[in-house]
């Protein structure tokens, strides 16, 4: 049973249902051999987003439901829409302002100097204090979640990812491969020509040797 949370959990409608979207296209290489639905649900669950609030971690990335981004649940084929799989990549990130780190580090160093009755600290000691300061700050700061929807047409081996952000696309490629043991090939001029344009062998040979054209010979 689906829960209607597209509006209220995300705050605003975004991704697939927003009025304006950006799409990065991928080709999916490989197949899931047995028990497609159960296998996909199990793999999504195993690689679902892990909460890092109250953890000394800076970043977490994982899958979540398109309709319930803050309660990942892949039971009951909730990710199937017709013949398409629809779910989201969620990336949670904590960002500590550098000035906050500098202030806390300064205070911690001053405290250590006072306690040890020394005038300077060894570089390694300072690094240790800085790591501890950052760890304590990470425990206090909540992570900011970002959701990026995807639509996977399994039969056509096509996947649309609803952002053009480089970092999110790189995260998608890594996590998808890790989760499903399938490769994602990003479609851009070369791959689109090679994989989606029914080129003959002779055309493929020519593609490998192409060099830029000058359209206006009188170019200044």
């Amino acid at each position, binding site marked *: 049973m689906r829960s209607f949370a597209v509006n209220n959990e995300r705050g605003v409608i975004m991704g697939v249902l927003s009025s304006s979207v950006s*799409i990065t296209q991928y080709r999916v290489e490989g197949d899931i051999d047995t028990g497609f639905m159960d296998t996909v649900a199990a793999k999504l669950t195993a690689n679902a987003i892990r909460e890092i609030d109250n953890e000394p971690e800076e970043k977490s990335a994982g899958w979540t439901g398109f309709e319930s981004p803050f309660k990942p649940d892949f039971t009951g084929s909730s990710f199937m829409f017709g013949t398409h799989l629809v779910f989201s990549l969620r990336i949670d990130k904590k960002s500590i302002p550098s000035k906050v780190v500098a202030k806390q580090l300064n205070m911690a160093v001053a405290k250590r100097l006072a306690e040890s009755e020394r005038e300077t600290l060894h570089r390694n000691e300072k690094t240790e204090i800085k790591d501890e300061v950052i760890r304590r700050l990470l425990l206090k700061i909540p992570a900011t979640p970002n959701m990026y929807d995807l639509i996977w047409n399994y039969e056509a081996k096509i996947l649309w990812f609803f952002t053009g952000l480089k970092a999110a696309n790189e995260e998608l490629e890594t996590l998808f491969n890790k989760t499903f043991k399938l490769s994602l090939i990003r479609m851009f*001029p070369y791959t689109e020509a*090679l994989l989606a344009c029914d080129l003959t062998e002779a055309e493929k040979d020519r593609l490998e040797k192409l060099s830029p*054209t000058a359209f206006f010979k009188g170019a200044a």
Partner: protein
Amino acid sequence: MIDVSVAYNRYKFLGHEFLTWLWHMIETDKDALLEPSLEMDDIYIGNRVVLENSSHNRDEVISIKGDGAGLEEGLLALQKGAKVTEMNLVAKAGENEWRFSLKGESLNLSTLKPPETGNVEGEEDVEGAVLEKIYLYEKAVNLTGHLYRQFIKRRLSPEWETQTVRNMTVWIGRAAER
């Protein structure tokens, strides 16, 4: 197949040539672009064209914005050796309109606005709304795939230099005389 990350940079020029060719086709032979299976009546340039001139050790970016913006500046840039790197397009099917930007180097569709759909007011509306959106996005994705396929077939044919480039050179030259 070349390594994907190497190929991305090496073949950026192909995406730029595609958009430059597309502009030429829209202006000179639009009917040849749209085949019936696409179910699109019209295609035209929207509110943004970005060109880049990397020839002669220059790295100029020319950005033309606004609906009905004078594309003459863009044509002048083409004369100087620039190519189109990004283009906003409008495709129409009857009253329905798709607006989107196409980036040459990635073929990504950005700011894609398909025709308006009904509001999602309850749980029971979600699946229908998603399927409707998929159908509408597919129209724009299929259109760009079709246009690119037309381009690449020409680009890899012996007639590319003897016919297409010759026609484009004439078009760019005439544009300058306007």
